[in-house]
């Protein structure tokens, strides 16, 4: 056999570069891998929502168990305690909605998305790493979608996954799948509502991240913004007693939309359309800020 030597150290690349692009998936996946390298923040952020999910699924499980009369594994005393915990409404859909709008869960989802999302664009700009991205054949949309999915991923871990877990527990413990048969719409609504809530927060966090140079500043800005709007809307409402000022607060709007989505009786006295328009205006403005900053970023990269 004729001997051949391949000592050339530099091998040219024969493959082709595909023009059809799923580049944003690569950017997203590398962003997720990079962000979840440090395990401690992951644990600290995702721990509490997971615990809340466990508590709520236990309530759901117990309330179903009580409905069926037989009380496997838990004695009557515990059942009473659970019922007390669940408050008057043992209706399962009620439990899920109250999980979604539970202040602790909402706070931690915001914290998780802010913690992982704040550095997504800010650190890229500070380090100059965006030069590496934009000197590649990608469009601004690829970059934006990639970073969006990477941040939303952590939002889903904090909210969507626990919500689905509760639903599955409800489905299993409900007598011969009655939960799935006649309340399937609740499952869909949970997924839709969580996804929408995560999308809004992700857009807000990324917009702030694209405006400032440093992750810590972006984190402070996100929390500053949210608490500021809350305080302003509270004070305005307190003094003028006009509920339209409460549209300023993101949390009030999401509560109102949750009541409307899950057809719950609501304590708010304005139409859901107003909340919907307020939230979509916020979402639109954050997307605009993102588009404007990314244009400048690639332009002056």
């Amino acid at each position, binding site marked *: 056999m004729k001997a051949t030597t391949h000592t050339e150290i530099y091998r040219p690349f024969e493959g082709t570069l595909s023009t059809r692009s799923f580049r944003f998936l690569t950017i997203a996946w590398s962003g997720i891998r990079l962000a979840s390298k440090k395990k401690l923040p992951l644990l600290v952020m995702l721990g509490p929502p997971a615990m809340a999910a466990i508590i709520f699924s236990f309530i759901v499980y117990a309330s179903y168990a009580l409905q069926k009369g037989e009380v496997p594994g838990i004695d009557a005393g515990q059942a009473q305690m659970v019922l007390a915990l669940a408050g008057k409404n043992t209706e399962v859909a009620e439990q899920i909605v109250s999980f979604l709008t539970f202040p602790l869960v909402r706070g931690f989802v915001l914290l998780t998305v802010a913690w992982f999302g704040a550095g997504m664009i800010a650190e890229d700009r500070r380090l100059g790493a965006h030069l590496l991205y934009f000197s590649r054949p990608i469009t601004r949309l690829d970059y934006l979608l990639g970073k969006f999915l990477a941040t939303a991923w952590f939002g889903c871990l904090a909210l969507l996954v626990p919500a689905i877990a509760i639903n599955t527990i409800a489905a299993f413990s409900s007598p011969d799948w009655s939960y799935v048969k006649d309340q399937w719409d609740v499952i869909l609504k949970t997924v839709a509502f969580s996804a929408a809530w995560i999308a809004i927060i992700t857009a807000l966090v990324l917009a702030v991240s694209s405006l400032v140079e440093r992750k*810590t*500043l972006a*984190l*402070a800005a996100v*929390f*500053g913004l949210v*608490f*500021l709007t809350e*305080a*302003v809307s*509270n*004070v*305005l409402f*307190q*003094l*003028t*007693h*006009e509920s339209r000022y409460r549209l300023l607060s993101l949390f009030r709007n999401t509560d109102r939309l949750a009541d409307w989505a899950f057809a719950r009786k609501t304590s708010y006295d304005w139409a859901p359309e107003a909340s919907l328009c307020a939230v979509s205006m916020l979402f639109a403005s954050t997307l605009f800020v993102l588009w404007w900053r990314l244009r400048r970023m690639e332009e002056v990269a």
Partner: protein
Amino acid sequence: MIELLRATWLLFRMQLTMVMRSRRMLLAILLAAIPPVIALIVATFAPGDVKPGEILASISFWLNLQVIVPILALVAGSAVVTEEIENRTITYLFTRPIPRPALLFGRLLATLVLVWLLLGSSAIAIALAAAQRTGELPDGLALRVFAANIVGGTVYTILFATIGVFLRHPMIVGLGYTFAFEMAIANVPGGSQSLTIQYHLRSILVDATETCWQSAEILNIDSFSSPGEALGTLAVVAIVTLVVGALGIARRQYVLTA
């Protein structure tokens, strides 16, 4: 001692323009402008029965003290030392024959001047906006609002600046303190309230006897201490923090990694 004062004065003059022009100050101006704008909106659109006192009370309590003062102090105060380290301009000052605490005091004074300017004018603006309404302001309330804002700004700025001397990311610690610790403990009635700066600031601001505080829905309104006492404790807290900061910056060797 004179050496310390002279160096502090020189650094104050040198840093004043720098602090004035930094992007953080833009953010601080924006923050300080929000309460007066809200007060104006309320004063014009609120229904007839709302008295000026109530507007001034609610806005200064729920908006100024709770959110604006801490965040503004956080934005300004956390940069006092950290900005010099991050820009790596601290080398020039650390290799000059000045006592090191002068760096902390000099920049802190420059930052405080701006914090006082912003919070002071914000407090006055709210009072003016509230005065548009018919009916008179309870006497002394406007003064107490002004005092609470200034004292609050000072104590918080000193606190966050000192945190900046020891930690690399004072912003995160400050954020945690303001939103997690203070908001949680200050709003829950009970003895532990006096651990927070917020409680003492509220003691300066709130005088339970005045009628305007009813509508502000403040829980346990009568558990506040007297303004004089609150001022005393806050003064002690400020001085102790300053001394700790000065000692810290004198001993600390800032290693500016490349």
